[in-house]
């Protein structure tokens, strides 16, 4: 009976952390408690959260996807290039085409990991290198021309009833993923493979196809993140995804998902994305330099993880 409760507490950590960060920040800057500030933060957190959602599915499986930066980059390039043509027909295809690119990259990742059984850490790294190279080939090494379509801008920067649309997109994706993880056999298979792929395969589950599906979901989420970021910046630019790789993994991990797979909570991942966004925002508002921001960032992640581990040892006694 201990297991589920323990998991819930792990998932609650980044949420508690977010509250603490906002309250501490508000001691210095009272505006942190204003609705407007918090709503803006949910918009920024949505970009990280959408990317982290895909990463979480793959990490739950016991793998990792290091191709996030350039999957995101290619989705942004494709969508802004199509939107930049100005032709309404092409513009309508901007988002579907970007998502299709993400799915194809997910399949390529799946081929290496599930069929050839190459460690995902190196294979997705190699795929990322190929994506980087092909984008240089495609764009000529300059920032790609093009702009966001009206729909992309609306999704990334618009608001409905005062709530940022990006946040609503994130909520919709989250509901879908929660259903997938908790109400379908796919979700159970993901966790089972994370525990023991051998045992899952011997029980008659097509582990290869489950791995494929997981990487395709990750590719789709990375692409959606790319579309939103391109909509936010109204352009795609070289290596726009690079700063996101590490925060994405950090968001998943401080949300209580084991990097070895088989144990994790999606709600925790959402909290992780919120926490990292709030922490980054408050450190930069307090005008703490980039150097100290990184030091504080790293230290807090270590402290949170160690606290989670110590508590886990307490409860398992």
């Amino acid at each position, binding site marked *: 009976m201990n297991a589920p409760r323990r998991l819930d507490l792990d998932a609650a950590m980044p949420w508690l952390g977010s509250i603490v960060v906002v309250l501490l920040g508000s001691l210095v800057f009272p505006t942190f408690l204003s609705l407007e500030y918090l709503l803006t933060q949910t918009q920024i957190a949505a970009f990280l959260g959408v990317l982290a959602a895909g990463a979480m599915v793959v990490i739950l499986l016991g793998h990792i996807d290091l191709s996030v930066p350039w999957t995101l980059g290619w989705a942004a390039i494709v969508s802004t290039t199509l939107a930049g043509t100005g032709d309404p027909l092409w513009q309508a295809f901007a988002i579907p085409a970007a998502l299709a690119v993400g799915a194809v990259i997910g399949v390529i990742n799946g081929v290496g990991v599930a069929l050839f*059984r190459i460690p995902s850490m190196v294979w997705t790294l190699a795929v990322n290198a190929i994506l980087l190279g092909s984008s240089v080939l495609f764009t000529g090494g300059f920032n790609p021309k093009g702009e966001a379509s009206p729909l992309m801008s609306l999704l990334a920067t618009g608001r409905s009833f005062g709530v940022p649309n990006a946040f609503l997109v994130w909520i919709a994706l989250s509901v879908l993923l929660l259903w997938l993880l908790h109400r379908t056999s796919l979700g159970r298979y993901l966790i089972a493979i994370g525990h023991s792929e051998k045992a899952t395969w011997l029980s008659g589950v097509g582990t290869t196809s489950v791995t494929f599906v997981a990487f395709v979901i990750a590719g789709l989420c990375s692409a959606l993140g790319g579309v939103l970021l391109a909509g936010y910046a109204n352009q795609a630019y070289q290596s726009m995804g690079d700063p996101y790789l590490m925060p994405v*993994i950090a968001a998943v991990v401080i949300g209580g998902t084991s990097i070895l797979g088989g144990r994790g909570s999606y709600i925790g991942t959402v909290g992780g994305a919120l926490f990292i966004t709030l922490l980054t925002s408050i450190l930069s508002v307090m005008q703490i330099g980039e150097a100290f921001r990184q030091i504080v960032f*790293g230290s807090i992640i270590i402290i949170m*993880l160690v606290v989670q581990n110590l508590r886990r040892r307490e409860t398992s006694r």
Partner: protein
Amino acid sequence: MSNAWSDRLLGNPRELFAAVFLAMALALYLGTHPSGASTYVLTIWANQATLLALVAMAQFFAVLVRGLDLSVGAIMALCNVVASHLVSGSALELAFGSATVLLVGLACGIVNGVIIVYGRLQPIVATLATAAIYGGIALWVRPTPGGIIDYDLADRMTLDVAGVPVALIIIAGIVLLFWLPLKRTGFGLSLYATGSSEQAAWQSGTPVAAVRIGAFALAGLFAGLAGTYVGFVTTTGDAGIGPNFTLNSIAAIVLGGVALRGGVGSLIGAIIGAFILKTISALMFFSGLPPLAQPFVEGLILALAIAIGGADVLRLRNRLEAFER
């Protein structure tokens, strides 16, 4: 006994494959280089490859005990900027500065090891966080690239002695004077034992905690060496060099036949892998391919080399064997 040598050669077929691949790539490079196989060409190639080889060695020690170190690039950057403050002046100052730089690397590695072992964190996660910390400190020490590293010393470390690049002498020295002796010590054996099966190693009396901390300390030390060597090549300090080296170090050791699951591979394999990666990049530069196509082809070759190295799935007799890897 008669086939001890063939056994040794075939002990790790991936390493052998990597060595053959490197020989072919290097022959192609020297054969196609516009100015031929001169000492100058060889020295530049060796310097670039040695940079990555030192980081790959750092990564190798972490991976050997079934850990991945995402902070090697950050430690390298930190040591590089510290060197740009300390490694200049009189001979005494140079010696003191170099020693301090290596101690910084060693200390970072020990901190990693202690957090991983006593905080019971997964190495990849713990070093993801410490990488942010070390990178932050590096940025604090030197916010913008600059500083100076003693030119005479840098020249001595990056040119050649009697036609042999110093970089290659350094690599040979590390292998002959450090790695081969280390493998025969109890600590060397414990590294492999801990990586193969931590539980079995622990049950047979290996001080697993100390061994793992030791492995990460070595990773830090070699990352420090790499940072110092970057300083010798560029003669400045730059806090931003880390991330690329971290990711390439992982690719390098895998190319060199080191298994990410731990316990398999050798320092020599890690070196070969790093040299392959840099030789491919160098080949691209003189290949006559349009510059814009070079990163793409480089990525393709990297993926292909990894796929061939990892594709012994085709040799499996039984589907279940695939899960053991």
